[in-house]
C-alpha cells in the first residue's frame, strides 16, 4: 500500500504536487485559492492564524456495528442521533460563511445515515465546499449495494470537488463487517475511478491481544477473490495505531512503557499530519451536537471545544479559537512542540501520558495554570455545549 505520509504539503513549505498522496490536491495553487476564500470571508491573515482548512464533521453518532474500542464514541442505531435537515443546512451555511475549503464526513457510520449523507454532500457541493473524505466501515459493500451506493454518491456530487481529490477511508479495525464487503468496495473504487478521481485508504487497527492488523486479512480476502491487491492505489493508515496505544483498558503488558509529554509533543505533527493530511492543518472537528473543536484527533480534549455551531456563528467560534494562547502556541510551533517554550521541560519530562490527546490535555491544564488563561469556550458559550438531543436530531432515518 502507499505509505502514509507520502505527498505532504504545507502552506509556505515548498511546491505542491497535484494528485499525490492520500489527501491529494487537484491544483498547485491550492493554498492561494484557500487564502483568497478566507480573505473574502473576512478571516484575518497572520503567520500562525487558526483557520480550519477542513472540518471533520460527525454527521451521525449512530453506527450499525459495535466495535469494542470505538475511537469515535459511536452509539447504536437506537441510541445515536443523526443531524436533521435544518441543522445540516445551517451547518453547511456556517461552513460556507468562513469559506471553509473542505469537509470530511465521519460518524458513527455515515453510510448508515445515507439520506443525511446525500444531503450534506449536495449542500456542500452547492456551497463550493469540497468533500475531502468519507469514512466508512464498508457495510454497504455487498454485491447488491456496492455499485448503487457509489451511484448515489456520484449523483449527490461526490466527484465534483474543486480543490481536493475525494478520499474514501475504509476502516477495518474491530468491525464485524465481512472483509469481503470491504474488498468489493476497493475493487469497485479502483476499477471504476482513476487515482485522479478518487483516492482509497484503509484504516487498520491492530487487535489489542495479538497486535495483528486486520489489513493482512483484507489483502488475503481481496486476492482470493480478485487477484493482486492494488497496493499502488490504496493508501495505508496504520502508523499511529500500532500497538493500540490509544485503547482504554488495555493491559499494561500490551502497552509497554510510558511516554513522556515531551516525546508526544515532539511527534505530534509528524504522526498526526500524515493521518489527517498536512494540507488540512489546522483542522477542526464538529460533533453531531454542534460542538466545534480546534483539532480533529480522536479523543480531542474537551478544553479544545470553542463553541457550538448550532448556537452561534462559526466565524465567531473560529475567531475565539484563533485568539486562544494555547492554539496560537500550537499553530506557531507546528503541533504540540509549540508548547516547549511555554510549559517547563521539567514538567513535560516528568509527566507521562498514553496518547497524543492525553498529552495535549495535560499541556492545556499546565498552559492555563502558567498563563492564567482559560483555553476553550468561555462559560457563557459552555452552556451551549451540553449535547441536547433536539427533535431534529432524534430521528431522520
Amino acid at each position, binding site marked *: 500500500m502507499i505509505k502514509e505520509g507520502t505527498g505532504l504539503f504545507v502552506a509556505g513549505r515548498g511546491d505542491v504536487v497535484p494528485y499525490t498522496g492520500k489527501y491529494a490536491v487537484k491544483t498547485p495553487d491550492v493554498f492561494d485559492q484557500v487564502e483568497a476564500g478566507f480573505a473574502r470571508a473576512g478571516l484575518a491573515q497572520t503567520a500562525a492564524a487558526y483557520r480550519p482548512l477542513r472540518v471533520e464533521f460527525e454527521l451521525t453518532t449512530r453506527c450499525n456495528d459495535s466495535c469494542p474500542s470505538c475511537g469515535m464514541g459511536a452509539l447504536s442505531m437506537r441510541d445515536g442521533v443523526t443531524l436533521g435537515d435544518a441543522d445540516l443546512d445551517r451547518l453547511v451555511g456556517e461552513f460556507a460563511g468562513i469559506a471553509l475549503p473542505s469537509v470530511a464526513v465521519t460518524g458513527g457510520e455515515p453510510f448508515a445515515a445515507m439520506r443525511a449523507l446525500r444531503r450534506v454532500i449536495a449542500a456542500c457541493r452547492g456551497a463550493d465546499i469540497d468533500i475531502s473524505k468519507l469514512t466508512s466501515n464498508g457495510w454497504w459493500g455487498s454485491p447488491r449495494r456496492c455499485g448503487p451506493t457509489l451511484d448515489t454518491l456520484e449523483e449527490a456530487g461526490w466527484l465534483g470537488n474543486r480543490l481536493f481529490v475525494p478520499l474514501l477511508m475504509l476502516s477495518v479495525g474491530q468491525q464485524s463487517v465481512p472483509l469481503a464487503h470491504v474488498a468489493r468496495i476497493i475493487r469497485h473504487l479502483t476499477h471504476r475511478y482513476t487515482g485522479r478521481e478518487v483516492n482509497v485508504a484503509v484504516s487498520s487497527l491492530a487487535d489489542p491481544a495479538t497486535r495483528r492488523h486486520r489489513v493482512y486479512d483484507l489483502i488475503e480476502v481481496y486476492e482470493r477473490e480478485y487477484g493482486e491487491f492494488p497496493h499502488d492505489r490504496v493508501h495505508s493508515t496504520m502508523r499511529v495505531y500500532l500497538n493500540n496505544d490509544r485503547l482504554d483498558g488495555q493491559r499494561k503488558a500490551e502497552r*509497554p*512503557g510510558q511516554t513522556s509529554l515531551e516525546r508526544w509533543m515532539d511527534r505530534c505533527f509528524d504522526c498526526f499530519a500524515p493521518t489527517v493530511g498536512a494540507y488540512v492543518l489546522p483542522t477542526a472537528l464538529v460533533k453531531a451536537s454542534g460542538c466545534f473543536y480546534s483539532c480533529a484527533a480522536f479523543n480531542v480534549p474537551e478544553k479544545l471545544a470553542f463553541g457550538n455551531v448550532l448556537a452561534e456563528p462559526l466565524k465567531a467560534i473560529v475567531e475565539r479559537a484563533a485568539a486562544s494562547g494555547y492554539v496560537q502556541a500550537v499553530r506557531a510551533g507546528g503541533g504540540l512542540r509549540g508548547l516547549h517554550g511555554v510549559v517547563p521541560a521539567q514538567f513535560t519530562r516528568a509527566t507521562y501520558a498514553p496518547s497524543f490527546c492525553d498529552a495535549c490535555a495535560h499541556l492545556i491544564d499546565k498552559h492555563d495554570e502558567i498563563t492564567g488563561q482559560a483555553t476553550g469556550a468561555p462559560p457563557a458559550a459552555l452552556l451551549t455545549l451540553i449535547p441536547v438531543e433536539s427533535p431534529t436530531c432524534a430521528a431522520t432515518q
Partner: protein
Amino acid sequence: MNGPAAGSVSPLLSNAVSRISGQDPAACKDRALLLADDLCIDSLALAELIEVISAKAAIVIPDEATGRVRSVGDLQDILDARAPGTGTT
C-alpha cells in the same frame, strides 16, 4: 515475516534500536529481542525507529511491513530485503 531467529544484527540496526530504546548498543544486537516486551518500544517509539532506519538505510518501509514487526530480527529481515548492503554481522 519469519519469527525471531538466533543471531545478531547489523550495526546500523543495533545503533538505531539503541538510540530509540535508550539501551546500550551491545544489548540491542540479538535478533530474538522483542521490541515491545524486551525493549519497551511502544508504537510511538516504533514510528521513530522506522524513520531512523529508513533514513540511515535510505529505504522506504511500507506501513504494512512495519505492522508485522515484533522483534529486532524482523527489522533486520526488512533491511536485508530492502537494503542488502547494510550487512548482517
